[in-house]
Structures are given as structure tokens and as C-alpha cells.
């Protein structure tokens, strides 16, 4: 198969210029082998090579010579291009040109568990490796012309649909038969995280898409190695065939680019990533991917912010992105990240050069711009021997311009593609732009001004100071003008011709009475510089600083400016802090200590004593803690903040394969908001849509760091399970009655089935490993299954369960399942009827993570009581209070305090429920959860008793660094206001300058709770 594909590729490439050989001709053959010679022309052969006065020779669609002194063969067609410039035609390797748009097929009202694709394909409808753009590509001259006008000669065209999108074809933008235009049938393999038109439920989330892609790689490799071929699978077959091609991944967002790269690293693939335009906001991490990028030039329009009430709905992120987006290509250049540029994402392809010039004004060098439109894309697709520069033997794709391609005044005259000429503007058009002394009939001389572009002149007549527009039309040397000065002459219509040296327009015309009159316009001077709005645009832009994260309450990196690289490595910085005379809630046997000094440095608690002298480190901060309280950082055992695109992968009863760790959103404002409530760590959990949810992520709330840097090092693996109404879809409406289970009886069976399969899987793996360890190759390869792998980890006590649960019967049931399978349920979360089975939980060894006082929101919480935490705690069950809610997460101290009211818990025990106990449940109490020498300096300084409703967080410290400070917060608020005001002023100027604007609409952030489905948003 591979050989055949290769042969086909060669054939097509070789055939590029003689493709019509096999076709019958209606009429006489019109073929020639003439040489076309372009002489006296400036040739920019590539970004590094310019010939000031050179010759370009083209024959049979190929370049046969480029140089200063070349022999022009006799009988050549010669074009004298004095004063003009030739560039290689541009290449866009991210285009849907000529490929029909995918349409969403029909879908029933209920769940769709299986693929709708008929045939021997794989199980998931979003995996479409069988899509082959070259087979459905058809030439569309109108679209091609749009791109030709911008100087493009070649594009990579693909079918934009699905997670695996099949192969893209390299096609020429000529207007001939497709047989001539397809330059390379399978030029790249296309991927994304977007399931496109797939109507199948799975994946319903970004993490599901990632898991699906990972499993597809594993399956494809297994399929390739499996010689027995018990299953024929077109999808896997085709997917394997794609692997030798360059792999292009559409990210859609800077964080998704990092996510794609992570998948790539796992399977040793270096993706070419199609960026979204906001990559400059995370450049260090983007650089670290070692990927090449394809960058769009679609920049957001300014918002209409003149109405102050509307303007409050535009976020700082949007404001700043508007200002900084044009600097994205420059940032890549500065960081030496290879990138190509694309016309993709532009609403109107005509904006391409305008936006490119904007990027150049923001710092992108012209050389890099040209490189990113020629050599880089050619190299990325391994076609630089054919395209991308002007060199003998290469395909004759070039453009003829009036000058520097990146200059606003420059006109693209012609675009030659495969040696065929496509005229865009006639360079023989006489440039009649200028100011003229204008007379007609017996009128006193006035002034005629002609401006605009050669294909679209604009003219005005000025009498005294009044300006009147003139309709002007030019065809070759013929010219006609008409205007109405609102005087007795009425509408004047003039016709005539253009004579050059000196430039003069003259002829005859008629007034409203039909009387003939003579007219002439004698060239006086060039048209004056363009109006003010244009000169304003020319100013070198001074965009603001990058905030980390790129939103309100983000901070500038302290050790860098703009896109200059950091001098110091940020992560190695540390503070030294001495807090004096503070009341310390240790969570240790010492209990609450009054009037203590606490010294922290290098991220750890170093000393706790009555009186610690002044620290030796010069940069140490000393904080007066008189009257204040110091507690361990709050740990939220159950949180759904900081998750991108879906917290539930709920299409199937088990989604053990998905990982919240793949979709951490380090830029969620709720991280900062939780910090303001003293939260230092959180377990980000999958939702509760299915009995086995996904793997969770344990993070420290290191605001400003990248997703990977938020993850807590060396944390044990956890996974979300769920029971009850959510997993049996009780409150999902009348259509959702298909997915198994629909009753608590079925839930138990899901577990027994899964763990039985997981056991068998582990046995199979053991047997396989036994063979391979002896150096032998087993007859049947082992198929890695990400879902079962996670379950095997549970059986092997390498992964631990946090189980969403409410009623006593189901809690009991799961403990029985676990006991019979030889593992423990680590934590029951929510667990509002835990008090009914507290003795059983204690015996099993399960912990509880519950709400303080939620109830009555659904049937299964009818018996929920606020005394639950207190009862569980009294029964010796490790009990935590969690939030499951971004709002409540930032006042968990208040929620813990309710246990004092409901059930009379001691204050120290109550505080432990949001600090030490969750640390125990997450197996991290050796590092966090108490104030103890040697532990991580994750601390909160409170203004008051930490369990009092009147307590405010003054400082939140993580790893010894202050991430939230009530005083700094005030400064940040002022900065936000100033920064907003500055950019809004700039936007208003832009609007006054005539730039298009968009209406502000408030973007409300989606908050996730257990029940939130990305596609099915349900109330709790």
C-alpha cells in the first residue's frame, strides 16, 4: 500500500506540467514549448537572495534559469519588467480551498452511542482518516482568484472535519483541470481536537477528544503489528497510512497547542501546529514544544467602547488581545520559533496584506514574513525542492509586483502559476494619480485630483474649497469623467484620452444642454500624502505588557519586558518571609499557638518559635502578625475550576481513560478568586455523569504559571467515580433513557463488569510481558487499553477513587464491590447520607468529603443533614468539607465553621476539615495540611479567627511565595482600571480613524459543577 502511494505521488509530481496528456481535445492542440523570459527585473529569489537587475527564464511550467547574465534563447517571449519586482508566489499550507464543507448529518433525539458511518470503519465517527482531500478537490476559479490576487500560488487543501481529518492535498491555484492542479495527492495528515460533524456522543469534552486520539494511536500501532488481523478496520488501516506524512494539528488556542504537543510527545510525533493567534500569551511553553507553527493573520476588530456601560462588558483579556494580537508573528520571530503564515481564519482574504503589514508594523521583519510565506511552508511539507524559491528546476510560481511586496503602495500585477500567467493588474495602465490643472468649456481653471488604486481610481474636483466627487473610468488610454458642481452647467460628461510625457488628459464633453465643450487636465504634482487616519495607523504601535495569566489580575513577569526572554528562570525564585507575633493553627498536637514567629524560605516552613531574630537574607519580608491568625492553606478536595471545555465525558458508562490533567486551564480567573479565599490546593475532578469518570488532577494554585506547572509534583493518581441519580441520568429528561445503567442495580453491574475485565486485562498483560521479557515476539500483539489501564491501577493500589455518592445503599454497595475486588474506596465525596453508614465506612477505611449544608436539590439528598460532617468525624472517618463550586470554594472556612453550629465540632477539628483532612484524603499530608517545620510553606494569614464569618484573607502563600495579598490586590485593581482605560482610549481613536468595530457582549464564564456536561448543561 505504501509503495503504491509513493508511486502515485511521484507520478503526479512528475506529471504536473503535462497532465492533460490523456485527455481528448475539442479543436486543435494548443501546446507550445516556448521560453518565457522576464528581463530587467529585480528578482527576490528567496528572502536572502535578491538580484537587482536579473533575468528569469521559464519553460514548460518550470524555471530554467535565474540570474543576472543569462542567455535568452532565440524565439523566447520576452517581457521587459523594468522597475518591477519578481517574488516567488506565496504558499498557504492551511486551506480548505476547493474542498467542500462538511455537513452535519441527521441525529436522533436521544444519545448516539455508536458511529453513524456505514462500513468496516472504526468505532468513532470523529476519526476520519479515510478523508482524502485530493479525491474530492475541485477547482473553483472564484476562490482561487481571491488567493491569486493576494499573491498565493499553492495551497495545502484539506477537509476540515473531525479529530482525525485524513490527508490534505497540495494544489495549485491555477484554473486548469484538477489533473494539472493536484501537485501532491497526500501532502500532510490533518488533526484537531474538534469532533466536527460527528453526531456520536463520544467525545463530548476536550479531554475525551484527547483520550480518543491517544487510544487511536495505540490501536493503530497494535493493528499494524497484529498479523492475525481478526478485525479489518478501514479507519486504522488508513490512519497508519497517514503516519509517514507531515502531521498538522489545528489547536484553536494556545493551551490546546500545548495539549497537542503533549500527545505528540507521547507518540513521538512532532506536530506542525496551526495556531489560533494568542500563542504570544504563553511563549515560553510554546517555544518548549519544539513544534513549528502555522499562524493566522486574523486580528480581532476593536470593540465599540464609546458607550461606557457597554464597555464594561468587554473583558481585559479581549482588550489586551486586540492590542497585542498583531504582535504574535513578531513574538515567534523573536523567540526563533519556526512558523508559516496562513490566510485561514480571515473573514475576507482581501485583508491578508493589510494584516500582514500590521504584523510588520508590530515588529515582524519583512524577510521573516517572506520566509514564512514561501520557504518555511515548503520545508514543512518537504516540497522545498519544488516550491518556495526561484531556482532552476523549480515550479514556475512567481508574482510580478510594482515594488516591495510588503509596502502598502505596491501593486501585484501578475501571478504566474505553473508557468501560466494570471493577470491581476495591468502594469501597462498609466498611473494617472496626481493633481491636475483642470479646465473645461469657458470655466475658470479648477483643480482635479486623482487618487486610489490603478484598478480603482478616485477623483475629485475642487472649486474654491468645495470638493465634488468625480466618476472616473479608464480603459487603456481612454478616459471619461463626469461630475455635477451644482451650478448652471449641470452634470458635465467628459471623454478623452491620456497622453504621457508630459502627463495630460484632454478631449471633449457635454453639459446638461448637450453643448459640446473642450477640456484638459495638465499634471501638476503627485497627490498629497494620504489623510490623517492613515498617518495615525503608521505610528509604531506601543502595545502593553503581557500579563501572566493573560487576564484580569494577571501580573507582568518581573524579569522581562514584552517578548524579551527572561533573564532569570522564574520557577527558581523564592522568597523568605518572617511572620511575627501571630496565632498559629498548627493542626499538629501543639494545637493553636499564640504569639509565634514563623519563618519560611525556599518554599518550606523553616522555623516556628516564640521569637525569631531578624532574618539574614536581605530580601526577606517581615510581616507583623499581631492580632492575626496563620493557618495551613485550604485544600479543596472537590473542585471543577480551571478546566477547559468540559468537565464530564459522559457518553459512556466508563470514561476512565480521560484525564483532567490534560485540560487544566491555568487562566481561569477562579484560581485567583480561590486564592483570595485562602485556597492553596485543589483536586480538579471529572464530573459525575457516569459510574466511572475520569482521572483527576491535583494542583497548587500557582496563579500565573502554565498548566503543567500547576500540577502538584508526585501526587498519587486519583479517579472520579459516581453513583446515583446523575449516573442513571434520572434528571436528564425523557430522551436519556438508553445508556446503561438506568438504575442503581445497573450501576453495581457496571463496576463488576469493568473490574472483571480489568483483572483479565492485567493477566493478559502479565502473560505478554513474560514472553517479551525473554526476548521473544508474541504471536498476537498486546492491545493497550487506556480505560482498562486506569482500572488496573486501581486494583494495584496505584490509583485511588473519589466517589460521588449520596444514599446509604449505594455507598454500601461500592464498598462491597471494592472489598470483593481487593481494593479500598479512598474517598466518598458529597456523601450526604454518610452519617447513616459511618460505622461501615470506618470499617472499610474510606474517607468522606462532604458539603456543610446542601440538601433538597434532588431526591437523593432528601435525607441530607448538616450534621453529617460532625457525625462522620465523631465516628473516626477522615472528613473533609469541599466546594464543588467556584463560589463556595472561596469561603470554605465558613463552610467548615458550620460544623461547629451543626453538631458541635471543635474549632480545631473544623479547620482540619478544609486543610489537614483533605490533605490526608489526597495522600499529601506529608507535604501540606499543617504548619510544621519542613512542610511546604502553603499558608494563609487571616485578619481574624479563621472560622469566623468576619475573617478576611490577607495573604495566601504557596511554596513560600505570596500569590494573593490584600494590599497588592488593591494595586492590581487600579492597574486593571488604568490598563482598560488606556486601551479603550486607543480603541476609540481607532474607531474615529474609520476602523471597523464590533459590539461588546458580555462573556459569562461557564462554571462547572459535578453535573455540568459540556454539551448538556444541567442545573445541579
Amino acid at each position, binding site marked *: 500500500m505504501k509503495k503504491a502511494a509513493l508511486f502515485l505521488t511521484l507520478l503526479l509530481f512528475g506529471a504536473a506540467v503535462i497532465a492533460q496528456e490523456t485527455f481528448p481535445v475539442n479543436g486543435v492542440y494548443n501546446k507550445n514549448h516556448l521560453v518565457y523570459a522576464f528581463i530587467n527585473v529585480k528578482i527576490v529569489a528567496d528572502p536572502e537572495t535578491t538580484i537587482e537587475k536579473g533575468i528569469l527564464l521559464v519553460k514548460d511550467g518550470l524555471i530554467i534559469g535565474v540570474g543576472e547574465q543569462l542567455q535568452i534563447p532565440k524565439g523566447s517571449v520576452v517581457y521587459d519588467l523594468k522597475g518591477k519586482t519578481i517574488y516567488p508566489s506565496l504558499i498557504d499550507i492551511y486551506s480548505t480551498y476547493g474542498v467542500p464543507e462538511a455537513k452535519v448529518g441527521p441525529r436522533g*433525539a436521544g444519545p448516539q452511542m455508536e458511529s453513524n458511518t456505514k462500513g468496516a470503519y472504526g468505532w468513532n465517527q470523529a476519526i476520519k482518516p479515510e478523508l482524502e482531500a485530493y479525491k474530492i478537490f475541485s477547482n473553483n476559479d472564484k476562490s482561487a482568484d481571491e488567493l491569486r490576487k493576494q499573491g498565493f500560488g499553492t495551497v495545502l487543501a484539506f477537509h476540515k472535519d473531525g479529530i482525525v481529518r485524513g490527508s490534505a492535498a497540495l494544489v495549485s491555484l491555477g484554473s486548469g483541470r484538477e489533473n494539472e492542479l493536484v501537485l501532491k495527492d497526500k501532502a500532510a495528515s490533518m488533526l484537531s481536537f474538534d469532533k466536527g460533524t460527528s453526531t456520536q456522543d463520544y467525545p463530548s469534552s476536550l479531554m475525551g477528544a484527547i483520550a480518543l486520539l491517544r487510544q487511536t494511536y495505540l490501536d493503530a500501532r497494535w493493528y499494524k503489528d497484529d498479523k492475525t488481523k481478526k478485525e479489518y478496520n478501514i479507519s486504522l488501516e488508513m490512519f497508519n497510512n497517514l503516519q509517514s506524512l507531515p502531521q498538522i494539528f489545528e489547536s484553536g488556542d494556545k493551551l490546546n497547542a500545548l495539549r497537542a504537543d503533549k500527545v505528540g510527545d507521547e507518540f513521538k510525533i512532532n506536530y506542525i501546529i496551526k495556531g489560533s493567534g494568542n500563542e504570544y500569551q504563553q511563549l515560553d511553553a510554546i517555544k518548549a514544544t519544539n513544534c513549528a507553527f502555522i499562524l493566522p493573520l486574523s486580528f480581532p476588530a476593536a470593540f465599540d467602547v464609546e458607550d461606557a456601560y*457597554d464597555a*464594561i*462588558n468587554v*473583558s*481585559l483579556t479581549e482588550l489586551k488581545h486586540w492590542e497585542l494580537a498583531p504582535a504574535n508573528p513578531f513574538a515567534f520571530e523573536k523567540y526563533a520559533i519556526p512558523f508559516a503564515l496562513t490566510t485561514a481564519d480571515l473573514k475576507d482574504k482581501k485583508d491578508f496584506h493589510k494584516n500582514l503589514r500590521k504584523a510588520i508594523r508590530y515588529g515582524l521583519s519583512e524577510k521573516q514574513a517572506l520566509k514564512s510565506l514561501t520557504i518555511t511552508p515548503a520545508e514543512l511539507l518537504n516540497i522545498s525542492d519544488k516550491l518556495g524559491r526561484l531556482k532552476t528546476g523549480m515550479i514556475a510560481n512567481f508574482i510580478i509586483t510594482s515594488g516591495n511586496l510588503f509596502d502598502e503602495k505596491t501593486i501585484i500585477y501578475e501571478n504566474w502559476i505553473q508557468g501560466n500567467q494570471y493577470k491581476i493588474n495591468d502594469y501597462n495602465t498609466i498611473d494617472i494619480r496626481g493633481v491636475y490643472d483642470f479646465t473645461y468649456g469657458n470655466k475658470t481653471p479648477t483643480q482635479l485630483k486623482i487618487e486610489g488604486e490603478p484598478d480603482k481610481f478616485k477623483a475629485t474636483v475642487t472649486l474654491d474649497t468645495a470638493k465634488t466627487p468625480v466618476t472616473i473610468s479608464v480603459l487603456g488610454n481612454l478616459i471619461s469623467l463626469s461630475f455635477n458642481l451644482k451650478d448652471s452647467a449641470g452634470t458635465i460628461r467628459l471623454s478623452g484620452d491620456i497622453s504621457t510625457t508630459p502627463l495630460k488628459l484632454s478631449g471633449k464633453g457635454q453639459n446638461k444642454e448637450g453643448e459640446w465643450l473642450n477640456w484638459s487636465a495638465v499634471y501638476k504634482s503627485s497627490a498629497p500624502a494620504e489623510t490623517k487616519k492613515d498617518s495615525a495607523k503608521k505610528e509604531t504601535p506601543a502595545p502593553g505588557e503581557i500579563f501572566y495569566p493573560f*487576564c*484580569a*489580575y494577571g501580573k507582568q513577569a518581573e524579569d522581562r519586558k514584552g517578548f524579551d526572554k527572561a533573564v532569570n528562570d522564574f520557577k527558581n525564585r523564592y522568597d523568605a518571609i518572617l511572620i511575627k507575633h501571630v496565632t498559629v493553627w498548627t493542626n499538629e498536637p501543639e494545637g493553636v499557638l499564640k504569639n509565634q514567629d514563623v519563618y519560611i524560605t525556599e518554599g518550606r516552613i523553616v522555623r516556628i518559635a516564640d521569637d525569631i531574630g531578624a532574618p539574614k537574607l536581605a530580601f526577606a519580608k517581615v510581616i507583623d502578625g499581631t492580632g492575626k491568625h496563620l493557618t495551613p492553606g485550604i485544600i479543596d478536595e472537590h473542585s471543577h475550576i480551571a478546566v477547559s471545555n468540559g468537565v464530564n465525558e459522559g457518553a459512556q458508562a466508563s470514561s476512565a481513560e480521560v484525564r483532567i490533567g490534560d485540560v487544566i486551564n491555568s487562566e481561569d*480567573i*477562579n484560581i485567583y*478568586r480561590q486564592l483570595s479565599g485562602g485556597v492553596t490546593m485543589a483536586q480538579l475532578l471529572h464530573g459525575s455523569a457516569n459510574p466511572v469518570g475520569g482521572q483527576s488532577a491535583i494542583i497548587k494554585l500557582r496563579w500565573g504559571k502554565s498548566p503543567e506547572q500547576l500540577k502538584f509534583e508526585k501526587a498519587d493518581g486519583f479517579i472520579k467515580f459516581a453513583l446515583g*441519580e446523575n449516573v442513571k441520568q*434520572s434528571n436528564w*429528561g425523557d430522551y436519556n433513557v438508553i445508556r446503561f445503567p438506568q438504575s442503581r442495580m445497573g450501576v453495581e453491574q457496571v463496576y463488576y463488569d469493568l473490574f472483571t475485565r480489568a483483572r483479565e486485562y492485567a493477566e493478559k498483560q502479565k502473560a505478554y510481558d513474560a514472553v517479551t521479557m525473554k526476548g521473544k515476539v508474541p504471536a498476537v500483539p498486546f492491545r493497550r487499553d487506556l480505560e482498562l489501564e486506569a482500572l488496573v491501577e486501581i486494583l494495584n493500589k496505584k490509583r485511588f477513587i473519589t466517589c460521588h455518592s449520596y444514599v446509604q445503599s449505594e455507598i454500601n454497595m461500592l464498598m462491597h464491590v471494592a472489598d470483593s475486588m481487593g481494593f479500598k474506596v479512598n474517598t466518598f465525596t458529597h456523601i450526604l447520607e454518610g*452519617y447513616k453508614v459511618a460505622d461501615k465506612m470506618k470499617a472499610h477505611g474510606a474517607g468522606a468529603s462532604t458539603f456543610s*449544608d*446542601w440538601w*433538597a*436539590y*434532588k*431526591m437523593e439528598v432528601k*435525607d441530607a*443533614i448538616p450534621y453529617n460532617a460532625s*457525625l462522620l468525624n*465523631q*465516628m473516626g472517618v477522615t472528613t473533609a468539607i469541599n466546594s464543588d463550586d*467556584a*463560589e463556595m470554594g472561596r*469561603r470554605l472556612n*465558613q463552610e467548615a*465553621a458550620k460544623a*461547629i*453550629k451543626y*453538631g458541635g465540632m471543635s*474549632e480545631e477539628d473544623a479547620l482540619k476539615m478544609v486543610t489537614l483532612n483533605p490533605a490526608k484524603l489526597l495522600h499529601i499530608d506529608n507535604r501540606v495540611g499543617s504548619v510544621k517545620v519542613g512542610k511546604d510553606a502553603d499558608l494563609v494569614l487571616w485578619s481574624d*479567627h479563621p*472560622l*469566623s*464569618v*468576619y*475573617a*478576611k484573607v490577607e495573604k495566601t502563600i504557596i511554596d513560600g511565595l505570596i500569590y494573593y495579598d490584600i494590599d497588592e*490586590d488593591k494595586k492590581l*485593581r487600579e492597574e*486593571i482600571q488604568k490598563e*482598560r482605560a488606556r486601551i479603550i482610549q486607543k480603541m476609540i481613536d481607532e474607531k474615529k480613524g474609520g476602523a471597523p468595530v464590533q*459590539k461588546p*457582549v*458580555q*462573556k*459569562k464564564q461557564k*462554571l462547572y459543577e459535578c453535573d455540568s*456536561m459540556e*454539551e*448538556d*448543561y*444541567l*442545573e*445541579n
Partner: protein
Amino acid sequence: MKQITIILSLFSFVSVSAQIPSTLLVGGTAHLGTDSIIQNAVIGIKEGKIILVATTSSAFNKADYAEVINTTGKHIYPGIIAPNSTLGLTEIEAVRATNDSREVGSVLPNVRSLIAYNTDSKVIPTVRSNGVLMAQVVPRGGLVSGTSSVLMLDGWNWEDAAYKADDGIHINWPRMQTRKFLDEDNTELGPFEKNKEYIKQVEELKKLVTEAKAYSESGLQSEKNLRLEAMKGIFNGSQAVFIHADYIKEIIEAVNFAKQNGFKRIAVVGGKDSWMITDFLRENNVAVMLSRVHDLPQRAEEDVDLPYKLPYLLHKAGILFCLNNEGDMEAMGARNLPFMAGTAAAYGLTKEQALKAITLNAAKILGIDKTAGSIEVGKDATLFISSGDALDMRTNNVERAYIKGKSIELNNDQKALYEKYKAKYGLK
């Protein structure tokens, strides 16, 4: 309609005045709800009314009262009022059969919450045991969601629980920006979009109000129109208009609309952006029934503590406001109203100002402050005793509560389950 109301109030009078013992509370701190405090207080209750508010040093006669309670070291508060609530209309949110807060249609002024109020709701006892003793019970949904009533959180049936029947009409001001469902199942929500129906919806409201006004002035109608009939009170001041709006422009539009149409008494409900237009609100004498204090800011760039300090911002600007708890789990969460006031006290208000925001201010906005909302002579004896600061969950412990002088049951199903399982495990 009017007739019915009169009969109703008669009923309620009769039912509560029957055999209520007289009570004297002696000692402790009385938080009057008026922003003032009395240490070593004595409070006398007779026939459901407060007849004495003084200090222990003043002259009073214990023998005048059937019961004397020593409240030394304790705190006495006026009953907390939960305005804009669905308490009694909903039992278990996800179970459709237990929900009576929404009716079909969009203009439903004639729909009355009063008659659906379930005095036997298991939720109510859990709310009043934290000191919340009255609620304005409000229908939800549509442009005009219906007519609310103020109810006491104790009663045999809605007739004797009614405190002020049909107190006001609730208008949900049309949203200028909306989110639409993207699918047929009404589960997938799209991004915020400009509400293209906005003008149409405002026109619909205008037409309704114009017609209602004409109807109210025209005397007898040959054919009764229940919707217009239900709105008569808003033009003569017997009923208030509660306009629910959060976004700054919506609030301004709503207030101007109310002004132009001659509504006698109005309040903005929600008012998340109200802090930005306090001058406008003050000039128009508009009160705000402020949205949930325990909430996240609406916009990423807003002050992280904005919802916490909103009460203070309105107080500082001299706007009459009270707190409400509309949102997820609103009925059962009403028991946290005192703690929301506590949070407001942590973020700018004094504790007494914060208390006022859930007692007297609420009574003023509901138009019941002549008889309720504070501990003052002549008012209904609706109050409670807590062993500690009631605004702090750490110390809130309601030991006794009175509604119109009658001591009410503070037990609830949750406490019963607690006791049951304590006994099972042999815990003390």
C-alpha cells in the same frame, strides 16, 4: 379580589391572636434591627405585640407576664426576613412534582404565590431554626411572573401564615443579552448574544402596563380581565412593583419605565450593577433587593470581593437595600441569610447595619415596617434568641423564636435524623 384580601387579613388576625401567652425576656443584648443595640435588655411581649423595649435598669414588672425568660448573655434579634424567595413553593428542586414556582406563559400578574405556599414543607423548619421567620414568596419566570405574598414561616395553612397577601407584582426586566439553547433537548446553551427580542419584549410590557392603567381607571368592566385586574394595586400604591434586573442598562431602563408609568412603589431586585449608578437610584428613590452576597463577581475584572461589599457600597451611597438569596438552592439556602449579612459585615458594614439589611430594611421594602422588621414597641413580636452572634455561623445558635408572640417549634427533620443516628452510634 379586594374582598378576598380583606377576608384573608381578618382570618390571620383571628388565628394568631388566640391564646398567646405574654412573655418577658430579661437580660442579654437586644439587636433592634434599627442599627442600634440595647445591652441588658428587657423586652415585653403581650398579645403578639412588643409592649416593652428597655434596659434592666428601668422599671418593669415581671408579674405582668405569664412567662419570664432569662436571656442574660444571649442575643435577641428581630426575625430575619427572606425576601424574593421560593420557600414553600419548592420542596426538591429536581423533582418536578414538588415544584410550584413557575407557571406557563410570560405575562402572568394574576398568578399568586400565596395559595401554593406549603406550610408543611420540610424545608421551612430548617430555615426558621436559623432565625429566618418571614419570607416574601415569589413566583418565577416570564416577563411578569406573578404576584408575591409575605408569609410567616409558621402556620397551619397559607391563610393563617399570610402576613401581607399579594404584596407586589414581579417583573423580570427583559435581558439585553441572552443565551439560547442550541439543541432540541434544551440542554446545550450557546454564548451570550444580543437579545434581538429586547425591544419587542419591552413593548409588550409597555402595552400591558398602559392597558392595566386604563383598566384601573375605567371603573366597572363589562368583562373582567384577570391579568389587568391583578395589576390595579400598583397604581394606587397598595401593591409594589418588584423589577428584577442586574445589568446596569437594564436597571436604568426598568426604573425609567416604572417612573413613566406612575408606579407608586418600586424596588429593583438583583441589582448586581447597582453600585455603579447609585446617584441615579437615589434621585429616583429606588430601593434595591440585592442579589446573593455569596456570589462570584459577574466579570473577571471586577473586584474579587465585589459581591461581598455590594451592601456596603449601597449603604455608603444612601440607598435603601436588603439582601435576598435568589439562585441555585434558593429555598433551602435561605437559612444562610444571616451569614450573608455576616459576610457583608466583614466587608464594610457594621454588624448592626448588616442585621438591618435582613430585617428592618427588608420590611421597609416590602411595606410591612409598621408592624415588622425590628424590635420596637408596638410592632409584632417576631424575634429570636441566639446564644451567640447570629450573623456568624460559628456562634449562631437559635434557642427560641417567636412569631407574633407565639413561641415556635425549632425542631426539624434534620435534627431528628441527627438524634436518631447519634443514638444508633451511642454518641453523646
